[in-house]
């Protein structure tokens, strides 16, 4: 290459390296958790969730997905990780508008949720399912195998 072309070549390389350095400059800080901006979970009631915060943050997508398949395909409605159960603590009513704590974190992480296209943002009315088997209805005249005859 000619002298001028070589200079241009080096200048371009320097610019590329400089831009890359700028991009990754904050990485050590981020890895160490320094100055990390955090969303707040506004409304949750109770001291902590079913499991601790770190675990929930990491695993909640898998827990929800597993629970949804259990409920949907196998009909298991108890279980700690159902969405309705989450809504008991993590939903709130803000001037008549239902809100969930999912929104703050997900807005921060820029991960779009489509749960709320179908799921309501409020807990189910009244009937909270206990974790143990409920008593068969007194109106029943016949029983499922293994159940109790009233």
């Amino acid at each position: 290459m000619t002298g001028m072309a070589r200079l241009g070549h080096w200048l371009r390389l320097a610019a590329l390296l400089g831009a890359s350095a700028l991009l990754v400059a904050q990485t050590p800080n981020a890895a160490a958790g320094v100055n990390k901006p955090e969303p707040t979970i506004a409304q949750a009631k109770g001291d902590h969730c079913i499991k601790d915060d770190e675990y929930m943050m990491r695993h909640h997508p898998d827990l929800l997905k597993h629970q949804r398949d259990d409920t949907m395909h196998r009909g298991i409605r108890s279980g700690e990780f159902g969405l309705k159960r989450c809504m008991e603590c993590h939903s709130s009513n803000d001037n008549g508008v239902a809100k969930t704590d999912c929104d703050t974190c997900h807005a921060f992480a820029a991960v779009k949720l489509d749960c709320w296209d179908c799921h309501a943002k409020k807990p189910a009315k009244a009937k909270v399912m206990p974790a143990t088997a409920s008593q068969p209805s007194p109106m029943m005249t016949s029983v499922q195998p293994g159940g109790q005859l009233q």
Partner: protein
Amino acid sequence: MSEQNKQVHEAADGDRRDFLKVGVGLAGVALAPGVLFYGISAHGKAPDAPASTAVRWGMLIDTGKCADGCNSCTTACATENGLSGQTGPQDSQWIRKMHIKNLQTGAEHNLPMLCQHCENPPCVDVCPTGASMKRADGIVLVDRHICIGCRYCMMACPYKARSFVHEPLTDQNPEVPRGQGCVESCTFCVQRVDRDETPACVEACSKDGHMAMMFGDLKDPNSDIARAMQSYATTEVRADLGLNTGVRYQGI
């Protein structure tokens, strides 16, 4: 759940049992006629138990008792499941009243038409992702998490039971999640069935005194519905397709 909560619940359970033992006798005597036998022949399952093939949910509809112009079942369905209740071409209808008239004889009948919860559902066969599914206890459902909205199941259903949600929805019933872009149909009010209750349409028909709809476990020979089906002639709509539907009709 925490230990404290569990203990409270167990104590409440004990009190509840005593109360119920006394209450059931009185309740049985007071409520025996009508509602008790027609509406509540169902038996549910524990919430932590999976649906089981030992049970098959079914419905029996006596068209002779179905009244012309009555819409209790459709209204109850819309209320329970959060449907709009509108009847435009793009509105979801999970149950509808049909009026049929024999072209040869002139005989007329009314009946509710809903998802027939077939044993061999064509909608389940054709769904590319497996979202259209049949639960172990026979209830045919759409897993809206994996439904991609291709509408092939709507092409396949012989009963036109399926609806497509054409617009974004808000204010759904928390028990019945439903939303834009997915296909849906009658679920036998699975959220109620799993709580030992009957579908809203059956309950409404009983409450109105028509008693045209009966719901129960087809596999239990002692259930009201099984005994009724043994005694009376019942038909399957489009029996020629060999689908073995869970919904049967009397009087047509």
